């Protein structure tokens, strides 16, 4: 019969210690954050209401709601989405469907990785230099959205590439064999079969763009701007706008004597938007995975 020697016992003990040590480390990363999020919600709870979302900030941003920054963020996100999605999807189509393994694809992939790694404040400098000054757009929603679009492009490229690569080659071959051209195959077979994966990337782009502050600080976001409450078309493309992230920065560092709940409320709304949008992407991904036909 096998009896455990001292050595195996020692090894067992070692293994248990390692396991629980690593588990504690993992929990130490996650638990405090969950507590922090609950604390944020707790502090914000007195102010959170529908009115908070739909009223402009008043009295030097020391009172009122977050309507103007909320609408500004929606504008920035949607416009950057409109710019980044076609470029990102086509770039991924090129990388996955057309490009062969060559130095060019290597350079492109490297560029995508680097684009994702450029500090957000450098994107801000780029946006200021290229769009605001060189292109002469001026500080505006358009310039800020362009900056955000370029910054979030890698997110869309990466997830679209993954989605396209998941479509089996046999689908394409079948399509080519009935005489379809490359683009017809992509349009009729590849893209429809990967649409939910692409959508996941788009959703992640939204969450990234909604949370960024530095890139819009000098390209189009302002500290304060009053707009018509309840008017969804209150901003023009060349107007400057408020944004949730910028607003949180302003009221928590630049404005004295702000009531405590106000920045907490803004933080919770911003965090809520970003996390909900992300959760949507995750749910969508699980759905695709469980429904795969091939």
């Amino acid at each position, binding site marked *: 019969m096998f009896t455990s020697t001292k050595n195996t016992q020692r*090894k*067992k003990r*070692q*293994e248990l210690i*390692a*396991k629980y*040590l*690593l588990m504690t*480390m*993992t929990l*130490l*990363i*996650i638990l405090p954050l969950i507590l*922090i999020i609950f604390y944020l919600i707790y502090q914000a709870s007195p102010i959170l209401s529908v009115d908070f979302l739909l009223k402009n900030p008043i009295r030097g941003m020391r009172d009122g709601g977050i309507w103007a920054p909320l609408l500004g963020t929606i504008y920035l996100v949607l416009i950057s989405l409109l710019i980044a999605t076609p*470029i*990102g999807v*086509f770039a991924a*189509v*090129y*990388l996955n469907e*057309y490009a062969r393994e060559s130095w*060019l694809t290597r350079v492109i992939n*490297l*560029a995508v*990785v*680097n*684009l994702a*790694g*450029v*500090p*957000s*404040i*450098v994107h*801000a*400098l*780029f946006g*200021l*230099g290229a769009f605001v*000054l*060189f292109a002469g757009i001026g500080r505006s929603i358009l310039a800020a959205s362009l900056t955000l679009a*370029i910054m979030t492009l890698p997110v869309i490229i990466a997830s679209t590439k993954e989605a396209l690569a998941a479509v089996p080659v046999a689908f394409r071959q079948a399509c080519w064999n009935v005489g379809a*051209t*490359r683009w*017809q195959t992509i349009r009729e077979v590849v893209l429809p079969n990967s649409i939910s994966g692409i959508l996941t990337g788009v959703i992640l782009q939204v969450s990234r763009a909604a*949370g960024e*502050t*530095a890139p819009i*600080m000098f390209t189009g976001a302002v500290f304060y701007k009053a707009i018509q409450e309840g008017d969804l078309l209150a901003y023009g493309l060349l107007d400057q706008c408020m944004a949730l*992230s*910028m607003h*949180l*920065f302003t009221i*928590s560092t630049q404005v004295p004597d702000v009531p405590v709940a106000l920045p*907490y409320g803004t933080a919770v709304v*911003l*965090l809520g938007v*970003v*996390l909900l949008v*992300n959760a949507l992407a*995750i749910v969508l991904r699980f759905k695709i995975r469980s429904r795969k036909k091939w």
Partner: protein
Amino acid sequence: MRLRELVNSKELLKEWMIEKLIWICGISAIFFVFGIFFFVFREGADYLLRGFKVTEFFTSIEWYPTSRTQVRYGALALITGTFSVTLLAMFIAVPFGLGAAVFISEFCPPRLRESLKVIIELLAAIPSVVWGFIGLTIMNSLILNLFSAPIGLNVLNGGIILALMSVPIIVSIGEDALKAVPDSYREASLALGCTRWQMIFRVLVPAARNGLLAAVLLGVGRAVGETMAVLMATGHSIRIPGGVLEPVRTLTATIAAELGEAPVHSDHYQVLFIIGILLFSITFVVNLTADLVVRGIRRK
């Protein structure tokens, strides 16, 4: 017959145009990276070539961009600020991040693994301005109470916040690297009588070394480039910190704090763009190294 040829050629033309469009989008990323460098360089070039004192920039701690008597642009304190905060962040984030990566990939039951990965992904999505706000409020009062530190923000605060921000990247890339190690390695070492811990320490970690290194490098890249969180959580004192409870200012925070006030095309404004070039170069090198390291494993 002729009509058909016409239709065909029209189709072909359309196809050709779309393929060109796809190609342009495909290489656009290269243009954007060059564009970023070009336009940031362009704004700072004039001063860089005219009166920029490189030695002063890298060796002096005297950052007096708006001084009336003698303007000085010594960025040493800012560079040290960036590195001290990054170093502290990595000191916390690397052990915890890699530990969590090992736990999630090797010890975790599959159901729990999925949920942990989702949570880590959500953590990665928290906007940096919210992190900054957490540092400013919750973390600051915690540190003041726990360490009886002088009132105000400090390196420790920024370091912890940055660590929490870079942990998700380190965990997810580290976990990918561990997962890429073939199962036959695991089976072989277990068959030889290794415990799981021995297997991880002696077989998996050495095998996944490059991927783990890349994970750390990308964490460093994120920490160096982070702006809003350090702007809000590290204090605003431009000097070389003597300890973790002293305030600092980083390169990124300096740009964010001063660009709004510097008149366009003034020397001060151009020096801020030169700092941008420096940051771009640092992260470029870090990302390039990470990429080369990752390719290294793939080739194997």
